[in-house]
């Protein structure tokens, strides 16, 4: 089988949300000592991008997005140990993500974290109800590129602004790109917070992060 055919098979397995088949193909790529970076980019990466397209088309919904994301994550966990020193070269960047203090809504944030991870970013998901100070502490410690802050409630959105204010006070604002998420977040709110962007869905979030990091 040509490599292209093999990549297509992987893409199809992911888009069909066939976990067993995807894992089987990942193992095959390892056993046959294929160029795993290329397998990830042309097979797995193409699959997760296609899932994003299907979401945009209204063919896929939350369950498919989440399932596709987790299949992708599990495949990557399997492949990474075999890539060795090249691991850093396939990480698109580091992201810390959390739902802000006072807000317990974690579904949207978790889906964004899953999709970012599935798209090759190293993601530190801190969970929900996390103080701004804690999010920044992890961002500094892990030397991330992106800080993602979610708020579903109009009453907790103020915490998103607080993140930027603390970064400015500490004179480290330019070290990070800050993106906002959550149903009530709008362009106007992003401008007022002086954040770097927002996304309306997990698929948009992946594109936003790629744009911000010029990937």
């Amino acid at each position, binding site marked *: 089988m040509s490599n292209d055919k093999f990549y297509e098979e992987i893409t199809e397995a992911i888009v069909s949300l066939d976990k067993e088949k995807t894992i089987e193909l990942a193992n095959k790529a390892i056993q046959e000592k294929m160029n795993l970076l290329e397998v990830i980019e042309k097979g797995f990466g193409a699959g997760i991008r296609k899932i994003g397209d299907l979401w945009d088309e209204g063919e*896929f*919904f939350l369950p498919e997005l989440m399932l596709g994301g987790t299949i992708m994550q599990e495949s990557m966990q399997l492949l990474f140990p075999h890539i060795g020193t090249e691991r850093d070269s396939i990480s698109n960047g580091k992201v810390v993500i959390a739902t802000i203090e006072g807000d317990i809504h974690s579904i949207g944030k978790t889906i964004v974290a899953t999709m970012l991870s599935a798209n090759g970013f190293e993601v530190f998901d801190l969970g929900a109800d996390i103080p701004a100070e804690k999010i920044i502490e992890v961002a500094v410690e892990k030397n991330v590129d992106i800080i993602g802050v979610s708020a579903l409630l*109009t009453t*907790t959105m103020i915490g998103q602004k607080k993140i930027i204010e603390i970064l400015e006070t500490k004179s480290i604002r330019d070290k990070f790109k800050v993106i906002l998420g959550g149903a009530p977040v*709008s362009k106007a*709110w992003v401008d007022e917070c002086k954040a770097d962007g927002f996304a309306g869905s997990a698929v948009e979030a992946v594109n936003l992060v790629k744009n911000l990091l010029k990937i």
Partner: protein
Amino acid sequence: MGSEIFKRGITPGKLPDTLNIEQPELIFEIHKSYYDAGADMCQTSTFGSSFLNLQGYRIENQIKELNESALKNIERACLPNRLIVGDIGPSGVFKPPVGKATADQWVSSYVKQVNFLEQGVDLWHIETISDIEEMEAAIKAIREISKKPIISSMTYTKTKRGFFTIMGDSLEKCVRILEDRNVDVIGANCTLGSDEMIGLIKELKELTNKPVSAKPNAGQPRIDLNNRAVYDQPIKDFVSDIREIIQIGAKIVGGCCGTSPETIKEIKEAINSI
């Protein structure tokens, strides 16, 4: 109710339902303003008072007090010949692969809430549900305890392929299941603004002979300088859409996010003039 509570300010991250206990006068006044505006039925302030949702806020031990206080607040405000609707909202937890919830957990969570509300409500409104299986669980829970009518409202988004819930349930599928479960009214609420709701109600009317209800948002929100959600759609535009929704055949109409007693007053005037 939520929009009116937020207008008056609430501590960030707090569940609005807790005001039933902490500020009963405020909740009473909001209910009263809706009944005074001419609403035939108002909902208890219990959208988030199911067991699982309260558990998310770590206040599930207050389930009895919250729901019973909510009843007291609305009973005081209710006028003669008007109705009290038991409001049942989403549990906040999803089934796999999105979350870990099971149908049994949903049913048990709603049973706990419905038990405390049954004594004081005239009918039920299960609303803003995005998973038809969760809706079925809520219906099952109510039927275990109550013989009162059920309005069943899923929340839909408009996709390129038509109206679906975010969990992927099509309008057609939801209607088929809700007819099978024999709910009394099939409706839709939230997410969509009043203009998009017109299209949905048209489709819904084609799919069912049951009475239909619509409770759209007043357009889409923006955040103002005081960090509050503001809905800019003029009331007259919303009411004009509601008028169209009524003409299509909806039997129960109302307003979700961004609407106010003023909106209801104008809807009532529009209905009286039809």
